């Protein structure tokens, strides 16, 4: 490849990525040369502005047709566009939260927050657009390694160190498994390009090596379930969520999870949805493995929702809640209906709004009291009625009560489960039953906020950044719940991601 071909590529489609990369680089340099005693909050606004610029440039890219550059390693299709919106919006909120993060022992390394968030975001965005196993893996690693550091950023706080350690080890294992799965695929097809792989696979099947391929599928899925925080790789979530700085927890539960679903959808649909499991006319590989993934989805929902019942630490409770939501999202994936990407996208948007909103309020309350115990929410309605009502909205949405975005998201996933023939009654029944179980712990927080007397009477004041996040998320949760057609109209321009394979 010479310079001429390199210059011929339409680099414009990478504008959002370049923006993030540029801002992250500049920030890391500024942070290096800035005197230690200077307040680094300004850097946060700079990072926030960078994300917003990237968002705007992404809007500019909306009308662009499917383009792929660099030998198909980077592609901009509707799938990439749609999911980058979630990633960027999530990262913008998380950066706002991190500016106002005030742990008890102080936060001397605030600058790292911003450029590490941006680096992780960049990794996630690369995964979204990737058309090649190599770039996909590099994106995954960029996201993972940045997150490992972020989790341990509270240097003088033992649980933070502990959770970073756990996260690295678990992450390492899962990455190894993912890579092992990828190596099978490379071994069977001799290429890392997704499109070429999909083309080669029919010959693999003809050679009678479908069992190796099935093994590769399971290995990839199991390895990637780490990012989703779903069974069998969910055990890290509670410890890491609890020990990590709250904005990082929010990042892991929203942006990192979204990235996980992005790579699962990309890989699974691209490689396995079109490949027949047995002969030429049999059901696809993915469909034939459906039951196994359905089992994992069911287990995820049950584990997340039942263990959450016993948690008193709210961050830990939200960790299990986030496991449960990964399970709901997997239901949307496993049913493989015509709603597959639409319903996952909508649910991720709803989840971003309700979960980040809840984490924003949780962060302020935990910072103020130095404890994440559920009793810190007692009497919040008396102390600050509006904050309590906002938190109530997020909780109701997480529980899937009508009038909120969470409800519409669940309805769409259920529609997918019932529209196929045969319908997934068992999985849907597990999902609805665990949803009812989740009422108990979600309403436990509501009980604290609205029924219990407060230990102290001082009102909870939200700092500017947190306030912005809370208002944005609360409005979004309600509006998308009451007039979901706004989201669906936006989604319709992607025409159900029909250009996924082109």
């Amino acid at each position, binding site marked *: 490849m010479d310079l001429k071909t390199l210059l011929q590529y339409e680099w414009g489609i990478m504008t959002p990525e370049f923006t993030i990369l540029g801002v992250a680089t500049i920030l890391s340099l500024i942070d290096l040369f800035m005197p230690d005693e200077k307040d680094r909050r300004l850097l946060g606004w700079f990072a926030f502005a960078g994300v917003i610029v990237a968002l705007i440039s992404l809007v500019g890219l909306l009308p662009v047709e499917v383009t792929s550059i660099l030998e198909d390693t980077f592609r901009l299709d509707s799938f990439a566009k749609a999911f980058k919106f979630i990633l960027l919006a999530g990262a913008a909120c998380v950066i706002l939260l991190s500016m106002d993060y005030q742990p008890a022992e102080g936060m001397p390394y605030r600058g790292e927050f911003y450029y590490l968030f941006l680096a992780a975001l960049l990794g996630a965005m690369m995964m979204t657009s990737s058309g090649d196993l190599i770039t996909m893996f590099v994106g995954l690693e960029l996201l993972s390694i940045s997150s490992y550091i972020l989790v341990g950023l509270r240097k003088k706080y033992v649980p933070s160190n502990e959770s970073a350690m756990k996260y690295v080890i678990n992450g390492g294992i899962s990455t190894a498994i993912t890579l092992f799965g990828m190596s099978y695929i490379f071994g069977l097809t001799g290429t890392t390009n997704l499109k070429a792989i999909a083309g080669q696979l029919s010959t693999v099947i003809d050679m009678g090596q479908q069992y190796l391929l099935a093994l590769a599928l399971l290995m990839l899925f199991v390895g990637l379930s780490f990012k989703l925080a779903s069974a069998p790789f969910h055990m890290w979530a509670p410890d890491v969520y609890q020990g990590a700085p709250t904005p990082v927890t929010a990042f892991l539960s929203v942006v990192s999870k979204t990235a996980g679903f992005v790579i699962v959808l990309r890989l699974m649909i691209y490689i396995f949805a079109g490949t027949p499991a047995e002969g030429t006319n049999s059901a696809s590989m993915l469909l034939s493995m459906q039951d196994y993934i359905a089992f994992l989805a069911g287990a995820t929902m049950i584990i997340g929702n039942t263990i959450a019942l016993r948690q008193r630490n709210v961050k830990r409770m939200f960790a299990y809640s986030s496991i449960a939501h990964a399970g709901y999202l997997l239901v949307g994936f496993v049913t493989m209906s015509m709603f597959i990407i639409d319903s996952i996208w909508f649910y991720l948007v709803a989840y971003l709004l309700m979960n980040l909103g809840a984490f924003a309020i949780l962060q302020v309350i935990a910072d103020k009291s130095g404890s994440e115990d559920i009793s810190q929410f007692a009497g919040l309605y008396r102390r600050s009625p509006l904050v309590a009502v906002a938190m109530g909205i997020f909780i*109701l949405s997480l529980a899937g009560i009508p*009038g909120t975005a969470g409800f519409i998201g669940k*309805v769409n996933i259920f529609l997918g489960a019932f529209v196929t*023939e045969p319908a997934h009654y068992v999985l849907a*029944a597990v999902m609805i039953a665990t*949803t*009812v179980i989740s009422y108990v712990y979600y309403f436990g927080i509501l009980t604290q906020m609205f029924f219990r007397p407060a230990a102290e009477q001082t009102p909870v004041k939200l700092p500017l950044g947190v306030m912005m996040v809370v208002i944005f998320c609360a409005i979004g949760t309600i509006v998308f719940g009451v007039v979901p*057609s706004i989201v*669906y109209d936006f989604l319709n321009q992607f025409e159900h991601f029909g250009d996924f394979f082109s």
Partner: protein
Amino acid sequence: MMDQTYFLSLLVFSPLLGIIALAFVPKEQEQMIKLIGFLATLPSLFFALLAFVQYLSGYDINSLAEKRNWIHFGKFAFLNKNTFTVDYELGIDGFALVMIVLTTILATLAAVASIHIKKEWKGYFMLFLLLEIGMLGVFAAENLVLFFIFFEITLIPMFFLIGKWGYFEKEKAAYSYLIYNGIGSAILLLVILILFARTGTSNVALLKEIFNDPAAQAQMMAPISEDLRYGLLIALLVAFGVKLPIVPLHSWMLRVHVQAPPSIVMLHSGVLLKIGAFGLIRFGLGLFPEEFRDLATFIAILGVINLLYGAFLAFIQNDFKMVLAYSSISHMGIVLIGLGALNEAGIQGAIFQVVSHGLISALLFFLVGVLYERVNTTMIDKLGGLAKAMPLTAGFLLAGAMASLGLPGMSGFVSEFTAFLGLFAAKPLIAAIGALGIIMTAVYLLRAVLTVTYGNANRDYAGVMDIRLVEAIPVLLLVALIVLIGVYPNILAEPLQATLEMIMNGLGG
């Protein structure tokens, strides 16, 4: 009549005005808040009565229907453009209108009963009005998804109203309410979404059409087999059975009756339980008439069990609220009995019972509120001899009990008589066993009420005031309505005629 296309929306959402107004009132202004809370229930009442009067004088109620585009799940090129849409569509028939009138009347009276609320009036009335929106919407919704959304809107305010303003074990009662009804709604949601996903629509009228038309069924997204239909009907029976409640699913409702503030129990017992009956008739009977016919005997037996179980347990209760709670279970048995009869008289009796019991239980719980306010207990053995200290209250209590046990000339008699008439015609044996329940009703109600009013005075009633004027007006109004339906049942029978005919057509004559 005013601009009709917004009429039902105004009817359903006008309590919202009250919520907004309340948001601007300082929370210490007790009188002001109570006044706004009361006034905010009036527009709905006015609209409902207006529609009712117009309907009786021959106005075509179907022209009130509204329809606006709302949600479109996934626009697929290969699908009909209306598939997977959920519209915002409201519409009422005679049955729904009667329920709406009942709701608005009880809501206004419950707002009056809320004068006994002691704390945080602002939050109370905001939730109260939200609850009213939910209840009205349930009856006006034309499609299943919208129905479900309104159905759930009643769930959340009720949780807070019980958990915050109730008595000693309020939080336990609130949780029990939440979990039981959560499971009920979860099952209901599954049924609704299975229908929606497989047919592509959730509009009740369209669903009926599809089920009656084999050609339309061939065009569905995915088939609905015979077994699935039975499954769906049984799921509906369970979902609404939690609400009604049908006997093994009733324990939450006892807690709510005892622990929730009386003004809320008026609505709970008067309207919310009736949503179960409404749903069973509207969707169970409306969508699956064939399957319902096969299950009719089973439903009639469930009804008799409800009737007898409630009646026998009511007999041994010491808490007057518990007597009334079991009495509610017993009376809801009559609704099931009427439905199980599956003939015109039976179904008419069931609907009559829904309305009549709504009024009667509201009356009795209003009086419980009045009583508790003055003597701080509802235990029967601690009351007694009330007739001397509070002659008027005691008199009203007796009137309520008489209506409840089915004294001729009051609404309870009409509904129970018609329901049993239906069942005797269809299934005489079950009806004969069920008739025992009627006797038991008289026994337990008279035991409870007579002990309270004429029994030995176990306490000093010095300084206990009788019912005040502001409290007496709602009571008189309720008694008047009960007697009105009792002497002139046509006031109900006429508006229900069209609905009944439609149900009977669905059943095949």
